[in-house]
């Protein structure tokens, strides 16, 4: 099975600082791949390159086997790559349905649509359908997002991305601010999203979460992919070892 998105030999410098030194990365449809590494390992730089925020200095990106260059995050989004940001990027005064359609409002048909009138009912229905299919417990599609719990807000942000992703979702620390119960719900949801055939790339510091939900774990250190584990092959000790370099064994 070919990779949905793959990167080969990615280099990136900030001035004289070499952040990425020939990183490889790949993710297939329907799997959860975690990207972990210590601070400064180049995780966020790699994700920025993969999601179109910045171009690599050198190296090749392939989307569904075809070479690709992202011109902007919006361009990457048009190609079906969504990102759930750590700060969620939700409008707190608006409801989940409204947030799901920000920037992609559905217009009414005919003259009203030509005048820019939005179809609130359809958007609410479709958002509800999507949210239910992803198993969220967000029921009120209109309550301001600010009135929801942290876990619910996280699931709104994830649902929104998955609704629009045509293949791949990046999730930046989706459980960082959550309690135990909410974390479990979000992890369940990530699993369900992948089971629907979407590729999920998880960036996280939380080793137990990563171990629980990932199909594969790719460890970055000093700008390179040092090791990759399949499901069940890693434990916290090994991951920490690979991240810190205490365990410099490439299997």
């Amino acid at each position, binding site marked *: 099975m070919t990779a949905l998105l793959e990167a080969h030999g990615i280099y990136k410098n900030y001035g004289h600082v070499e952040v990425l030194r020939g990183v490889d990365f790949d993710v297939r449809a329907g799997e959860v791949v975690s990207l972990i590494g210590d601070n400064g390992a180049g995780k966020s730089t790699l994700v920025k390159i993969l999601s179109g925020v910045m171009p690599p200095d050198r190296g090749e990106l392939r989307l569904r086997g075809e070479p690709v260059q992202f011109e902007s*995050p919006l361009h990457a989004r048009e190609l079906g790559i969504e990102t759930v*940001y750590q700060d969620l990027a*939700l409008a707190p*005064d608006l*409801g989940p349905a409204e947030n799901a359609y920000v920037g992609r409002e559905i217009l009414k048909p005919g003259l009203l649509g030509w005048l820019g*009138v939005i179809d609130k009912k359809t958007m609410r229905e479709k958002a509800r359908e999507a949210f239910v299919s992803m198993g969220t417990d967000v029921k009120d599609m209109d*309550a301001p997002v600010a*009135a929801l719990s*942290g876990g619910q807000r996280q699931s709104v942000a994830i649902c929104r991305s998955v609704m629009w992703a045509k293949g791949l979702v990046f999730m930046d620390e989706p459980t960082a601010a959550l309690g135990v119960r909410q974390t479990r719900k979000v992890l369940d949801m990530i699993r369900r999203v992948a089971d629907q055939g979407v590729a999920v790339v998880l960036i996280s510091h939380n080793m137990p979460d990563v171990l629980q939900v990932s199909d594969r774990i790719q460890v970055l250190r000093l700008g390179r992919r040092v090791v990759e584990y399949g499901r069940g092959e890693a434990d916290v000790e090994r991951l920490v070892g690979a991240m810190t370099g205490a365990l410099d064994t490439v299997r």
Partner: protein
Amino acid sequence: MTVSPDARGVDVNAPVPPDDESTTTTGLPSLSTQANTLTTGPVEPESPELRAAQRARLRRRLFGSTPLLMAGVLILIFLVFTVAHPGTFPAFGNVRNMIDDTSLYLIMGVGFTFVMIAAGFDLSQGSVLVFGQVIAAKVMVAVGGQGGWTVAVGFVAAILGGAVWGVFNGLVITRLRVPPLITTLGSLGAALGVANLLTQGQDNTPTPAALTTLSAQLPWGMSWRVWVALLVAVVAGLYLHLTRFGRRTFVIGSNEEAARRSGINVKRHVVKLYVISAALAGLAGMMALINNTTTTVGGHSTDSLTVVTGVALGGVSLFGGSGLMVGTVIGMFVPTVLSNGLISIHVQPFWQQVATGFILVLAVYLDQFKRRRRDRV
């Protein structure tokens, strides 16, 4: 500009939540003021959760609504003055005066509502009004003639003249990133200064005779400017609450970064909002010109403050993201009715300033209070 995926934007709602997911809907009055009021979603009696959500939505609309509260306050004020002075205060002629006085502020308030929902601010409206009417008067003199067409040209000139300041405000705010309060404080001074330069500070620019005719007419019992204000408020209200442009205005006010990341051209949108605000101030200038049949260069220095007061009283959040046009309409009446009522019971009208000031502070406090109760964490 590009946005890093891990940029931690200032988002008050991001941090640690309470570990309680049992209630998705809080019974608290909230500031949800999106105009979803027209549709109620599908009726599925077999789903109690859905019905609970619908009930919550209804509850939010009824009790969480500042406009409704303010309408109550307005009726109360009206009743108090009616009891205090049953002869003249509630008389039709006086009510008409109150509506007429409010209409000018309402036209500006409509524009201000757009700006404030996007978390902006426009202090310059009073001066832009003056600038608009001076331009209108000058253009009408230049065009010549005493008839309706000259007046029509005046309308266009006033609106365009105002809009120029909107473009200025919008560009300075979005491109040079000068805060809206300072930018519009600057144009508050500059627009009035230019108007004074054009007129040498005198209100003697001649106006066409048709203006005087218009000024005296009372179609359907109200002056022209009342009908214009009503039309503006209705059209703008529909535009704000039903269209994509309106929705995006709310998004920008609620979380500008989210708007930007979702591909909305925030800068262009914000410029448009300031243009709407200034163009409506220009229109208000023309309406004032019709009413007085002369420019009123010195008479609008505190208009902006009256407008802010009315808009805030109507429940449009000073922090952006929520508000209703109908709230602005209701809120705008409070200062006028107070002022008129106090005069009719022979209290010094200065008390109106005192009362409006305190009511404004109270209204904004309530806004804050409800926001805090709504926001979990």
